[in-house]
């Protein structure tokens, strides 16, 4: 992943705090950048259509439309979509549901910078 072809990432999370942390981690690399942020599933779907990002990080529990339903809708729209779930402890069943819908990996909160970047690199380099 070279500097000239930064991978475009979209963050979906209802908590601004989490979005800001993820954005800082992702933007602080020379191979990826955050191109959009959404606070719920409906916003995410609209933004995905517009941006067609290389990868999406997806919170699972959000108002209006949750992560599982949003993953399903995005995959229906784009079979090649790469989605990484950001989950919390105790959400193992939801992570499994997300994987069934087509999520490619998961990051568990609380996360360290390296954990986020390891997952992103693993997915985007595949």
């Amino acid at each position, binding site marked *: 992943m070279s500097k000239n072809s930064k991978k475009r990432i979209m963050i979906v999370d209802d908590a601004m705090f989490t979005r800001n942390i993820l954005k800082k981690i992702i933007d602080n690399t020379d191979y990826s950048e955050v191109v959009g942020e959404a606070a719920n599933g409906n916003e995410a779907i609209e933004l995905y259509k517009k941006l067609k990002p290389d990868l999406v990080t997806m919170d699972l529990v959000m108002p209006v439309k949750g992560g599982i339903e949003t993953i399903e809708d995005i*995959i*229906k729209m784009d*079979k090649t979509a790469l989605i990484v779930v950001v989950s919390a402890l105790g959400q*193992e*069943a939801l*992570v*499994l*549901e997300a*994987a*069934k*819908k*087509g*999520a*490619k*990996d*998961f990051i568990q909160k609380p996360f360290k910078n390296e954990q986020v970047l*390891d*997952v992103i690199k*693993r*997915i985007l*380099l*595949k």
Partner: protein
Amino acid sequence: MENEYTEKDKISIIVFEVGWEQFAIELLEVKEIIQAGQIRRLPKGFDFIEGIFNYRGDIIHVINLKKKLRLDDYNLYGFDNNGSNKNTSNNTTSEKNAPEKNAPEKNDSDIESNENSHVKFIIVANINDTNIGFYVDRVQNVVHVNVKDIIRLSPIFQTSISVVDYIKGIIKFEDKPRILINLNKILSETEQTTIKKEKVNVS
């Protein structure tokens, strides 16, 4: 492990059950996992092909992993249907001292699956540009695994038994090991070509 990973890496795997055995595949290999609906039988062909299935408008072949892996022939670790080990002397020190708690935990989905044990699943994967379904009994969990906890088969074992081509390694879990399967290698080239030809005929 595969060349692209180093011993420091972690991978995400999905653990599933076929018959009495539990296996794992890399989550990256999975396109989607769906509840098995109506599978239409094909009049002839490989005995391990369960039939064809309409996957979002794409007619895909569904492989019966129990037949393909010949699991009716033997029980790999001597576990009974409840998962208890018939041969307790197999509990090695290395398993007890596994460096990370990789053991898939019971969760809500497990309970749901147990209550609806008749519900089967199809793991859809893209094998050389062809969507193929793999019929499994139960999908258990998604976990991260340290690459260093995946034991590669010794070269002697690999050369003496050709069927182990599709085995990426054995994952050390606290309770019992699981075989990490490479879905891309589970079908031979001839089998893949035949499936592609049949797919053209039925589409």
